[in-house]
């Protein structure tokens, strides 16, 4: 298979303009003859569904949530980037492009990233017009803050609830189109398979989560905006229901899965407190603007602290190691996430971690509290501090926070070309669900930007190009491919119900998460990955012979839902391990211990690995085939990332 990214010709800065001119248009009267399915109504899906409906297409939108407003996007805290340069501090489209490519450790496509930076400015306009209450300065203009991996202030925010406000904006646009009858919304409906007819995506099979009813839906094109797969690790900052099923089912129907091993471990999360832990809570990266990360200088002191023999306040200023400021004077506490996470792990591995388990470092606000007072800090971070206190029962105004890295975001996802189309014609992927823009590491505040760029400003153009080449004839579910896909879905559900074993879906999920975190987490090596592969295969066998699910299919059955998602995680997990094993280099969030510089930084191998690894499914328990999309860099020079 030859992978064609369909990147338009011409200078970087003109590609998108030219492409928009060159794509075919569907004439306005014909648009209502096309049906488009959008699966997922988080930022990427709600924005796409609303925008496509505004253009005149008939949209059917699906979400397993009870309302689009509950999508995982709602939880994003810190902000959204845009190259507005409102602060006059030297930002530009090119700088945002450059920071994103560099931040991604040169494993993303130049053309996609440049377009992202270009449309970023329109997103902010759009959101403000919808009534999104961004933070403002006293003069009434929009405020900005800085985020990791950047030296300019380009992040727009709404206190610590930016994702909520952006999603409610997209949700309101979607609700408006539902009221107009242009979008039909299917809540609490889970896509369980993709239907491919004559090589083209033509529909989906769904299960109504309240009644268990299985349905077929046909359309001229299908857009997946179903989010990331960080929950492979069981514990992550993702919402509990976030899962990989839609993307994975599409993968098994032919869509390539790109860079599955590129996962982002976020440096500032509340540490694990016990076995019962069901998820991890992020403390927004924006806190690193003012919080200083440190551990005790000596192992001995850290030990005494852990045992409770001394208190934090007993550690004198000169006995504190602000290790990020020390090692990276230029960026300090604002180094990118992968760098911050790895350094926190190093400190803990050295025995200088804090908290009872030793798996935490301090994030200290005493300096900013002294500078602007408790009131000022509360203005900026009040809700985050309150959340921290609720979970840990400790007051961060008085004690430094304890934080530790946790799985947060997946840069990998369905392979898409410049048009956000997968290799299956008619199947598109947007938002966290695709792999397109963040390379091996995503910069903070760039996921919201990408989701909304894809949904508001890219897909509405590029999908038209495909539809214009598709006859505007009504589509139906008549084709046998629909019956076949439905039969497979039913058969699988019955299999879950029929095993009658002894272990719950959650138990399998936790076991998988443990393997993934241990061997395919913040640091990986060949030996560990080989071990993980076997362990996952074994676990999968046990899953299919010892799973326990009670109740019926024909009712709200959350155990059955969970079983399906865990079954898919058990397959995806193995592919992540294969991908990590294949990539004999370190880059961004993918750190192979064998490949590091003498200072312990990621050591890339641009000669052999400057490619997108796109995997093709071959059948259950058969190794997948790797396709490579070579990455060419014409506008940036590949260097070792330096934040010193």
């Amino acid at each position, binding site marked *: 298979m030859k992978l064609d990214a369909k990147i338009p010709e011409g200078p970087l800065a003109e590609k998108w303009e030219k492409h928009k001119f060159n794509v075919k248009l569907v004439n306005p009267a014909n648009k209502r003859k096309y049906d488009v399915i959008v699966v997922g109504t988080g930022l990427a899906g709600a924005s796409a569904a609303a925008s496509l409906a505004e253009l005149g297409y008939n949209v059917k939108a699906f979400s397993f*949530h009870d309302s689009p*407003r509950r999508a995982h996007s709602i939880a994003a805290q810190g902000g959204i980037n845009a190259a507005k340069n409102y602060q006059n501090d030297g930002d530009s489209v090119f700088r945002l492009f450059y920071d994103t490519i560099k931040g991604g450790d040169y494993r993303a496509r130049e053309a996609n990233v440049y377009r992202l930076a270009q449309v970023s400015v329109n997103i902010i306009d759009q959101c403000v017009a919808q*009534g999104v209450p961004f933070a403002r300065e006293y003069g009434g203009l929009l405020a900005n803050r800085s985020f990791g991996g950047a030296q300019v202030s380009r992040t727009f925010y709404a206190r610590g609830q930016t994702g*909520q406000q952006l999603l409610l904006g997209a949700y309101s646009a979607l609700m*408006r189109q539902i009221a107009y009858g242009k979008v039909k919304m299917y809540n609490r409906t889970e896509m369980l398979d993709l239907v491919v007819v004559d090589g083209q995506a033509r529909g989906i099979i769904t299960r109504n989560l309240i009644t268990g009813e299985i349905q077929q839906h046909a359309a001229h094109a299908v857009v997946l905006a179903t989010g990331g797969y960080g929950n492979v690790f069981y514990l992550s900052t993702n919402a509990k229901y976030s899962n990989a099923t839609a993307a994975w089912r599409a993968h098994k129907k032919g869509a390539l899965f790109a860079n599955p091993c590129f996962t982002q471990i976020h440096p500032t999360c509340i540490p694990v407190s016990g076995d019962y832990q069901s998820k991890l809570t992020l403390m927004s990266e924006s806190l690193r603007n003012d919080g200083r990360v440190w551990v005790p200088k000596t192992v001995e002191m850290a030990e005494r602290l852990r045992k409770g023999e001394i208190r934090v306040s007993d550690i004198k200023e000169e006995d504190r190691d602000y290790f990020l400021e020390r090692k990276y004077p230029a960026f300090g506490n604002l180094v990118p996430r992968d760098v911050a996470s790895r350094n926190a792990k190093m400190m803990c591995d050295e025995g200088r971690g804090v908290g009872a388990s030793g798996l935490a470092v301090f994030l200290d606000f005493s300096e900013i509290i002294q500078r602007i007072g408790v009131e000022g800090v509360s203005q900026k971070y009040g809700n985050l501090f309150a959340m921290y206190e609720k979970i840990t029962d400790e007051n961060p105004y008085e004690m430094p926070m304890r934080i530790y890295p946790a799985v947060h975001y997946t840069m990998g996802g369905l392979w898409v070309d410049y048009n956000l189309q997968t290799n299956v014609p008619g199947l598109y992927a947007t938002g966290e669900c695709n792999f397109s823009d963040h390379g091996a590491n995503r910069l903070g505040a760039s996921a919201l930007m990408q989701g909304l760029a894809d949904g508001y400003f890219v897909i509405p153009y590029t999908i038209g190009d495909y539809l214009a080449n598709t006859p505007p004839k009504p589509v139906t579910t008549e084709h046998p491919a629909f019956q076949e896909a439905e039969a497979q879905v039913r058969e699988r559900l019955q299999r879950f119900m029929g095993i009658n074993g002894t272990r719950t879906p959650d138990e399998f999920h936790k076991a998988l998460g443990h393997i993934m975190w241990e061997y395919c987490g913040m640091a990986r090596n060949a030996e560990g990955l080989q071990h993980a592969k076997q362990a996952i295969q074994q676990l999968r066998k046990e899953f299919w012979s010892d799973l326990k699910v009670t109740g019926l299919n024909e009712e709200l059955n959350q155990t059955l839902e969970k079983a399906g998602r865990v079954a898919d995680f058990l397959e995806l997990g193995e592919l992540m391990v294969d991908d990590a094993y294949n990539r004999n280099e370190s880059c961004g969030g993918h750190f192979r211990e064998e490949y590091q510089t003498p200072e312990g930084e990621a050591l890339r191998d641009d000669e052999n690995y400057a490619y997108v690894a796109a995997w093709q499914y071959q059948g259950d328990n058969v190794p997948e085939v790797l396709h490579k999309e070579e990455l060419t860099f014409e506008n940036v020079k590949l260097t070792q990332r330096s934040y010193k």
Partner: protein
Amino acid sequence: MAGSNPNAKPMDLTLKVWRQRNRTADGQLVDYQVKNISPDMSFLEMLDVLNEDLLHKGEDPVAFDHDCREGICGSCNLYINGRAHGPEPGTTTCQLHMRKFKDGDTIVVEPWRAAAFPVNRDLSVDRSAFDRIIQAGGYVSVNTGGVPDANEIPVPKSIADRAFDAATCIGCGACVASCKNASAMLFVSAKVSQLALLPQGQVERKTRVENMVAQMDKEGFGACTNIGSCAAECPVGISLENIAILNREFLAAKATSNNLA
């Protein structure tokens, strides 16, 4: 690390949980024992323990809604010991921790009860009425593209902050559940005042409030009699001031427009 409270002892608790197979079935409170509950667990993690236990025994786990477990998605919605989201003010169910309870406690767990929120199963309810109220007008009618530059219309910080405060409503429905009339006024008013405060919301100001209030009535929510338990139980502190704004907006709209028959 045993969190904040290393000396806190695990607890044994009795739960009385509402079980109801589906929307039309009869429901009842059923007693369960849970043991060895760490005070650092969240309330939902405690229910996870119960559910794993039930599953191992071959019984159906208790259905409940949740997702983010961070207090922001608005999914979780338990009525605990007679209070929406339980005993801790300003806290969603998912952010409620077991340290707020004592060993030996009996905890009653019920779904939101309101005619407009039918029970799906056990503790899960259908809140789609909220979506339909937003569909009636809870938006600014702008299409994608063709909008002015974001800094073209300055908004005084104090106004932006107030709009933000109203906009933080998570759509959980605790206001309805805690109101003896099952009124949705706090929810509706939060959206109405957010958009009434901002310049972007001005054009549709009158139709919006009329249409949203009409839809609210149609969904079968009760009337507001100004008792204020909604704001007292709202986990994100949506203030009663919003209801005052809604009433003002509604009267002004009615007095000056013929938008609705």
